[in-house]
Every structure is written in C-alpha cells, then in structure tokens.
C-alpha cells in the first residue's frame, strides 16, 4: 500500500537560511502523525511543503503516490500549472495556527465556500453538508455568526469544518491550539480526537504532548531541520534516546 505522505531527502531554504536539511519520512493511511520540536526546527515549514504552500529545493515529496507540485517525465521535472496545484490541494485539508477564517463570511459561509467555488457544488448540497459539519464540531448554533463574534476555540473548530467540507484524504494541522487560551484547547483537541477515530490521516504539528501520546500513532522529533528521533509516541516521549530529545522534553513536559 502506498503511504499517504512520503518524503525523500526534502530540503528547503529561504535564501541563505537552510530550514529543512534532508527530511525522510512516511505517513501511513489512517495514521495520526505528530511532529514536535522547538520553534525554528522546520516542522511547520515541512507541513507547508506537503500542500505546496512552500516549494521544496531538493528531494521528492509524494502525497498518495503523486509527486507534489511537479510532474516527472523520464528524469526531468516539470512544474505543475497553478490549476493543477490547486487540484492537488483539494484533497489536502489544512488547519492554521491563526485559523485564517474568512472574516467577511459567516461560519456557515466559510464552510460552504470551497465546495461551491472549487467543486461547483449546488448551494443546497453544500449547505446541508456544512450544517452537518458544524454540528459535528459542536457549533450548529453558531452557523450565522461571523468569525469576529466567535472565540478562538470556536473559530478553530469552524476552520476544521471548513477543511473537512472538501472531503480531504489528508488533514494537516499547523499548531492548531497554539493561539488559543488554555481553557479553549480541550474543545479543539476533542474534535481532532474524534476525527482521528473516524480514520482520517492526519499530520499534526503540535506542542500538546498529551494529545500526541494519547492519539498519535507515530511521532517525529525535529530539530535544526532534521529528524532527530522517531517512533511510537509512547516510546519517544516516555523513553527518548537522543540528548536533544531529552533536553526538549524536559522543558515541555
């Protein structure tokens, strides 16, 4: 079975700053894959490479067996057109640290937008699904609210519903609870836990070690643009082998 995400020697740099220095990893179907590490370790950058928000400088990145952002013919790579990149992204949901909801649309409008605009779905069908998804994240009664009228936790749950509306096969979470007040984190994690149980493949950049230990199937500790240690969350978090992992965990646990 092809892995959902496969990275082979992925490098990324911004000018002189070398952010990713050869990442190799595989995310299996239905797996909850957690990425942890200190800030600046490149974990968010790697996540953004998976849906081509960032272009990688070398290596290969595959989602569901498909090369991300390029087409390979023989030994030559061809950049994909914008429309082809957009088509690849349709199947990859993303949740941002700062929610990035569309502030000029209601919660319902946010969730309905992409299916209507991208898939050409009818309003009625999109609306029916959006209402179901908002109900699933516990916000059925907030459908008519604008993002500015919602708390951070509610906004993030709408953002999750918005990503799910495209019925993705892979969900990317970029520190989804880092911008939230502590008492709001639980609601968002509950939604993510529920999503994991439904069998969604998830790549989660997080600082929530409890969530990683409890829900994660695999965990990778990144530092300085490389994978330092990987394995089952219980093993890596409970019995770290590398000094850098130990030092990081002693600070956050």
């Amino acid at each position, binding site marked *: 079975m092809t892995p959902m995400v496969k990275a082979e020697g992925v490098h990324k740099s911004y000018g002189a700053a070398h952010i990713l220095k050869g990442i190799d990893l595989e995310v299996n179907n239905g797996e909850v894959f957690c990425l942890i590490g200190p800030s600046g370790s490149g974990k968010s950058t790697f996540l953004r490479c998976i*849906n081509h*928000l960032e272009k990688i400088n070398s290596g290969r990145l595959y989602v569901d067996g498909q090369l991300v952002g390029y087409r390979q013919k023989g030994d030559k790579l061809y950049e994909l057109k*914008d*429309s082809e990149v*957009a*088509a690849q*992204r*349709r199947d*990859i*949901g*993303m949740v*941002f640290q*700062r929610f*990035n*909801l*569309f*502030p*000029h*649309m209601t919660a319902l409008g946010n969730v309905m*937008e*992409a299916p209507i*605009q*991208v898939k050409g779905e009818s309003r009625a069908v999109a609306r029916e699904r959006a209402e179901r998804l908002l109900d699933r994240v516990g916000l059925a009664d907030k459908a008519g609210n*604008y*993002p*500015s*009228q919602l708390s951070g936790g509610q906004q993030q749950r709408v*953002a999750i519903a*918005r*990503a799910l509306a*495209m019925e993705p096969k892979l969900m990317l979470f970029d520190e989804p609870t880092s911008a939230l007040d502590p008492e709001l984190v639980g609601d968002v994690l509950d939604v993510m836990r529920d999503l994991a149980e439904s069998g969604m493949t998830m790549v989660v950049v997080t600082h929530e070690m409890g969530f990683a230990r409890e829900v994660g199937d695999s965990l990778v500790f990144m530092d300085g643009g490389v994978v330092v240690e990987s394995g089952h969350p219980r093993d890596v978090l409970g019995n770290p082998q590398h000094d850098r992992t130990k030092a990081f965990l002693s600070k956050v646990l």
Partner: protein
Amino acid sequence: MTDKLDKVPAGASPAPAGVPPEAIKAIPVRHYGRWVAGVVVVALLALLGYAFSQGNVRWATVPEKLFDSTILSGLWHTILISVASMALGLVLGVLFAVMRLSKNPVTSSVAWLYIWVFRGTPVYVQLLIWFSLALIFPVFNIGFYKDEMTDVMTPFLAALLGLGLNEGAYMAEIVRAGIQSVDEGQTEASHALGMSQAKTMRRVVLPQSMRVIIPPTGNEFINMLKTSSLVVAVQYPDLLRAAQDIASTSFAVMEMFFVASIWYLILTSVFSVGQFYLERHYARGSLRSLPPTPWQKIKSNLLSLRSDQSGGAA
C-alpha cells in the same frame, strides 16, 4: 444576610443596602477662554454676513434660478459625467492594481507607466489633449469603423476619457493599497482549499480589501463631483457651464455661481450619506457590532429619554 451585616464592626462603615452612594456635587471649572473664543468667532461671522449684505448681490435671483431648466439639465449632466467617469475609473483602477501586483514584469511595468503618466499630469491638461485629439489624428480608423475624429470625440467622450483615465490612476493606487492590506493567511487558506488564483482574488481578497478601499473611494467620488466642473474646457454642458450660460445673458454672474455652489453642496452631502451606508455594509464581520445609523441613533436616544423620564417618575 441581615444578621451578617449586623456583625460588621461600626468602624468599617459599610454602604447601607438599598441606598445609592451620594453623587459628587462640585462646582465645574469655568472655561473663560472658551467664552472669549466663542464671542470672537461669532463677531467675525457677523462681520462676514454684514459684508455680504452690503455687497451688490441680487439675492432673490438665487432661489429663482435654483430650479431653472438649464440649471437642472446641467445638474443632470454633472451627475452623469461624474458617475460614468467614476465607473470607468473604478474598472481601470481594479484592472491596473491587479496588473501592478502581477508577477509578470511587462504588465506590472505597463501599470506603473499608466499611473505615472495619468497621475503626474493635470487633469485639465488631459481633458484638453483628448478634446484636441483631432489635431494629430484627423480620422478615427479602427478597421471596421472609420469616421472624422471631430465627430467621434464628442464633448461627452472627451470628458469621460479625461476624467475617467485620470481617476483610474488614483483608484489603481487605492485598490493596490487595499489588496495589500489583506492578511497573507487569507490567501494561503484559500489556496489550501484548492481555490484558484482568480477565485481567491474575487471571493476572498477583494471583498476584504473593500473595507480599506471604500472610504478613500468615497472621497474620490466627492472630488469627482467637483472636478467635473473642469469639463467646461471641452464644451460639455455641465452644471457650471449652465450657470455660466445664464450668467452671460442675465448678468447675474455671482448669483449664478452661488446657485451652482448650492447644487454642488447638495450633491456632495447626499453622497456622503451614501458613503456612510456603504462603509457600514463592508464593515460586516470586521466589527463585532456595526455602528448605528443616524436613524438608529435617534431612535435609541428617544428610547433612553423615555426610560429616563420613567426612571425619574418612579
């Protein structure tokens, strides 16, 4: 509760339940400077009024000519050319703003050149250039259509091109600032959902940039209503031209300028009100609660007045 209160030591002097704390009654500071300034300003105004009353103005002519058919026709033409030029300016503004921000160096350079030329020369000169185009191109020929340039370049077209292209250059900069004010995360979120560049612009970025674009655009339109008086230069029969026409036959020159000014004031006032409602519409989602409309303000003031009265009666 009561026995607990009873146990409070007398020295603590708790506020007795049910009795509101005594309001402060102090003698307010006297602002003598404000009184002096007020008197001086009123005196100056009175002097100004007196000067005008002594001037050789036939005041009766003003209301008499306010609804003259020539004036009303001029008024209509002023509104027409202002709206048409503003519409052209808006379309060009959005077009050139998007071109200016495009990754294609040719389109962005062309947009830069357009803004540089049309913002850098006086609109009066531009109007004259359009009107005099027949001097260098006597015949208008685009293959399937051919005519004398003097027939093609009517006063309306010259006015529209002169005002509209000039406005487009200003609008391009306003729209560009608006587009750039939208958070990058919005574009990213839209792209992550699989939305194309064009859809992202139309559905996500432009509606949000409206909040930044509308206020200066309203100012531009109010400016346009006034700047349109320059179209006298290209023989367009606008409000000022109408006033001048009547003035030249009736010799009520100043009176007719007053008539025109009154209409310009009315136009700009009416559109200021429209601008308020437009800004309110696009504030949706960015404010928790929208600012009240003047009508809502009046209503809430009346309501609070009523509740004050009932409170006083009780």
